[in-house]
């Protein structure tokens, strides 16, 4: 029982990271109908900026988060403006290939930057190796922090999308882009800001993941797990991405404990198959068709 709770927590914490990367997928997909396969690599780049923010500039942990999110927001907007916008209107396949290319480039660039390279780094956090003993359970403070910070970010994003003019406009232009144009919403700028937001969320995810996998140029492959998370939630649903991420994190942790070696790595895809079989549009799949 105690072990089960520990495992549930570890799985949830890991699921939070999947959830945030999946959230990035979904935001961009809803806005531009583009699946951004570079999302995991944006996360990786964000983690590297956080690393340098801490070691080079000497920022404290909280400032590191803001710094990495800000820098990545700019990177995300630049990517949209420079490589994505010019190919919009081309077949979806072209755009997807370009995002895959962007991922390769980001990984390549990181290995060329002095001080980053192909090494593995530890990102220091105020939580370190601290543990909390509750009853017989040993709980890593790190895991609680990841869960807490993810919850806080989700709350902020919820309030932003629900109540701010820009947030509602982002929803509006992803629901009906043509109507957004008619209402004078600068759709292109809004889409650029969504790329910025997604990249910032990715940076946040990278920082949360860093204590688990450390920071290295291939840490972005976790996107391969976050993608099923987005699909499970119903690609195109923000709450779905969160729930999907958590489900996959927890299932993975359980599979790692109770199933034979190797099941852990395919667990995410098994979940996808089961969910899609039962509910083809995903857990939170929207039935309303999007226009334009």
């Amino acid at each position, binding site marked *: 029982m105690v072990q089960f709770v520990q495992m549930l927590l570890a799985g949830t914490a890991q699921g939070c990271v999947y959830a945030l990367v999946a959230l990035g997928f979904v935001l961009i997909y809803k806005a531009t109908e583009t699946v951004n396969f570079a999302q995991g690599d944006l996360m990786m780049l964000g983690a590297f900026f956080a690393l340098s923010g801490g070691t080079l500039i000497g920022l404290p942990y909280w400032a590191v988060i803001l710094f990495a999110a800000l820098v990545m927001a700019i990177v995300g907007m630049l990517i949209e403006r420079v490589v994505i916008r010019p190919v919009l209107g081309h077949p979806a396949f072209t755009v997807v290939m370009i995002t895959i290319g962007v991922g390769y480039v980001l990984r390549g660039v990181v290995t060329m930057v002095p001080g980053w390279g192909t090494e593995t780094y530890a990102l220091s956090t105020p939580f370190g190796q601290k543990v909390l003993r509750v009853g017989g359970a040993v709980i890593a403070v790190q895991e609680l922090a990841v869960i807490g910070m993810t919850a806080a970010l989700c709350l902020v994003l919820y309030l932003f999308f629900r109540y701010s003019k820009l947030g*509602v406009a982002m929803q509006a232009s992803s629901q*009906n882009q043509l109507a957004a*144009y008619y209402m*004078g*919403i600068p759709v292109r700028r809004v889409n650029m800001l969504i790329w910025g937001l997604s990249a910032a969320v990715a940076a946040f995810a990278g920082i949360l993941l860093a204590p688990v996998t450390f920071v290295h140029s291939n840490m972005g492959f976790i996107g391969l797990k976050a993608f099923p998370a987005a699909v499970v939630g119903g690609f195109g649903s923000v709450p779905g991405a969160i729930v999907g991420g958590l489900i996959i994190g927890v299932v993975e942790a359980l599979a790692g404990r109770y199933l034979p070696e190797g099941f852990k790595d395919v667990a995410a895809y098994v979940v996808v198959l089961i969910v899609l079989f039962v509910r083809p549009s995903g857990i939170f799949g929207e039935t309303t068709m999007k226009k334009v």
Partner: protein
Amino acid sequence: MAQSMLELANVESSYGPVQALRGVSLSVPEGRIVTVLGANGAGKSTILKTISGIIDPQKGQVKLRGVEIQGRAPDQVVRAGVVHVPEGREVFPLLSVEDNLRMGAYTRRDPDGVAQDLEAVFGYFPVLRERAQQEAGQLSGGQQQMLAIARALLAKPQLMLMDEPSLGLSPKLTKEIFEIIVRINRERGTTILLVEQNAHMALKIADWGYVLEVGRIVMEDSCARLAEKEDIREFYLGVKAEGVRGKRRWKKKKQWR
């Protein structure tokens, strides 16, 4: 005639290789209602899209109060005071009615004015107040049309472009919507360019009418006189001509040029 709010001069627009407008010139005086009649595919919607910046014309000028606005981005056109109520409503289906209305005011920076206009549109369309918190996608077609008009009003336009507001509505609702269009014009002084298939209604409320055929204006006149013309009566008002012509009508081609 009053000062001109909108002026189109020899506007040509295309969708790729398909030329939809072949040199359209028209003028909308300030404070008036002007209508463009035309069959399906004549290019009515294209005129409105060209004005609102959704598509850019290849040739010609679009002038708003004498200032050329052709080729501007749609949000700049809205800021200049022109709002387009598109064909087929185009609401934001998953946003609440109220959020839809707020998006209409996206370009505005005067919260007090927006609050006033919100009250004003609830006055025109009380049903929208009742449904303010409901998702727009759950409204009926007629209610969505009301929402589309109300949302456009929140941009505080000087000129409203309306594309077939009666499409798919019952005759009763059509009448109501047209009454409100007239009220908007009279009470708020909003100039209106109205595109309609329902020529009956359009000719009744508009001051001046243009007839568009395959991308060209083929006739213009006051609506009272247009309503008397035989061609118009026959092709847009569905009034059958009598005698020999009536029998041979299937052969006769529309010919105004």
